[in-house]
């Protein structure tokens, strides 16, 4: 009897017509949808409790900050069509702004975080506005240049603490507030943005990526749409930056480090572009792996590169895209 079975591959029905019907057809189907989400949400929420070591708790915090950048990158690249290397720029602007407000103007932490996120995002958007009509690699180059410009300006003019940085930034009241603040921010950013790209307004953003000429012909100001998208991404980045400064209790030129631009891209590649959650999963793999490899000393970057290369070659679509494909195209054994 065993030989009389064969594997059958079935495509799920046309998604747009069935929308959520499949999801509630059985417990198993519901499980497919609920369990991954629950794992992510509860895993993140419980991580400060479950992870005892202070060091690894800190790593989770960094993972969340990188996740914010990666979500922003994925949103800009795969839903608006702007390849941004601006992670370092966003972190730097948000971080320095937060440090300045906190030390020079003596604003408390619960004011510096929202103010620097929003004002920082406005500053980033205004500075990037001139290159928004450009497409492709130009936007990437400009976003890469800005952090370098700012770094050199701070160094040369000796402003904002110069090479020493700004000391004495107030810290979070305690470890728990710090961790849960950034974890909740990450979860909200992820689920709000996922919702956003799927509602009607989100379609306008995706259309800009698909065909900006047609969007113009539809009577919509493409530059405004792009600017809004950049604002959203830089809001997430600046939020990460100001949080980081309050964790370090210091703001320095290393906020403009290239890591903040590159790791989000690598994470998006590993996790799967265009899924948003993939970007988060990617950082959850990359950042801890990078910490683990620290023990290898100089060879760290070699292994790091090997892991990245492996992912690019063997799973170039990324984890989430692979998982989604498997979900939409499920296989079962049928009697011949």
């Amino acid at each position, binding site marked *: 009897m065993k030989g009389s079975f064969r594997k059958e591959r079935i495509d799920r029905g046309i998604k*747009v017509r069935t929308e959520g019907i499949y999801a509630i057809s059985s417990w198993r189907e519901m499980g497919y949808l609920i369990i991954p989400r629950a794992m992510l949400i509860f895993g993140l929420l419980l991580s400060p409790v479950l992870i005892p070591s202070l060091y690894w708790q800190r790593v989770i915090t960094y993972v969340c900050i990188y996740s914010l950048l990666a979500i922003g990158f994925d949103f800009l690249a795969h839903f608006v069509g702007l390849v941004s290397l601006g992670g370092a720029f966003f972190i730097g602007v948000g971080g320095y702004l937060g440090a300045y407000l906190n030390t020079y103007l003596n604003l408390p932490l619960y004011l510096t975080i929202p103010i620097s996120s929003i004002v920082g995002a406005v500053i980033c958007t205004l500075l990037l506005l001139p290159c928004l009509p450009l497409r492709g690699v130009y936007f990437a180059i400009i976003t890469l240049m800005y952090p370098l410009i700012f770094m050199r300006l701070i160094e040369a003019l000796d402003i904002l603490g110069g090479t020493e940085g700004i000391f004495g930034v107030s810290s979070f009241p305690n470890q728990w507030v710090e961790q849960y603040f950034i974890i909740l921010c990450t979860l909200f950013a992820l689920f709000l943005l996922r919702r956003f790209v799927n509602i*009607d*307004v989100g379609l*306008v953003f995706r259309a800009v990526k698909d065909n900006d000429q*047609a*969007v113009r*012909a*539809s*009577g*919509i100001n493409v530059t405004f749409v792009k600017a809004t998208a950049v604002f959203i991404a830089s809001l997430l980045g600046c939020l990460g930056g100001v949080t980081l400064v309050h964790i370090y209790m210091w703001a320095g030129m290393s906020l403009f480090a290239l890591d903040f631009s590159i790791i989000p891209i690598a994470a998006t590649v590993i996790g799967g572009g265009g899924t948003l959650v993939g970007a988060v999963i990617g950082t959850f793999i990359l950042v801890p792996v990078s910490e683990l490899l620290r023990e290898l000393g100089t060879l760290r970057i070699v292994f790091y590169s090997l892991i990245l290369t492996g992912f690019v070659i063997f799973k170039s679509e990324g984890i989430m895209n692979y998982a989604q494909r498997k979900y939409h195209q499920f296989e079962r054994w049928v009697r011949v």
Partner: protein
Amino acid sequence: MKKGILLEVSGLSKRFGGVQALSNISFKVNRGDIFGIIGPNGSGKTTLVNCITGFIKSDEGKVVFRGKDITKLPPHKIANLGLTRTFQIMRPYYSLPAFKNLIIPLFSHRARKEGGWRGGGRLGDRKTVSLDILEDIGFERDSSVPYKLASSLPTGYLKRLELARCLSLRPELIICDEIFSGLSMSEIASMVPLIERLQMEGITLIMIEHRLRELFRVANRVMVLNFGVKLIEGLPEEVIEDERVKEAYFGSDTEVMEYA
């Protein structure tokens, strides 16, 4: 229906490096007409459309639409005034289903101000509105066609989707850039009545065309371009008899005689 001039182009010129793509083009389009623009390949027809709709900045000249100077306006503002266009090479959003393609223009100022489809009023549920427009333009509502990804639709539907995008802005003037090209004879046969119906509904159309037979059937006036210069403008039957037009399309008589 209000009569009068809807679009007036005067002295429009455009140069690309050494090529004079358009030189001193002037014409007027009356409200409710179908105005045809023909000309051999490279005669500047698409450049003219791009200049009128703001996709390319013209060097000289003036474009007046509904009494308002739109020469220097960006494309999205021109579209919001009710002057829309289709693209010769179709530009749908390939990653979206057909009905979601129409949700994007429904976010424009004009669509939100002018309200819903047919009979006006408040812009209702965007999905319903876009399905209404698609049904109106020949997408079978109860079939799976409106739900298919634009990348899987055949050319005929994509051309209709271009028109639908214009219609969702509730336009006064549509410029159709080669709407018949690439279509089969039967697809053209079903497209012609659609064009005629749009005219009946009070929409003015400018049609850039290679398909002279279908164009002359629907057009009220025709203008001929050659090497960026306006050759002649007039009624279809006048234009087709004109010697200069024959020459532009088929070469001069003397050459024909020599080869004969």
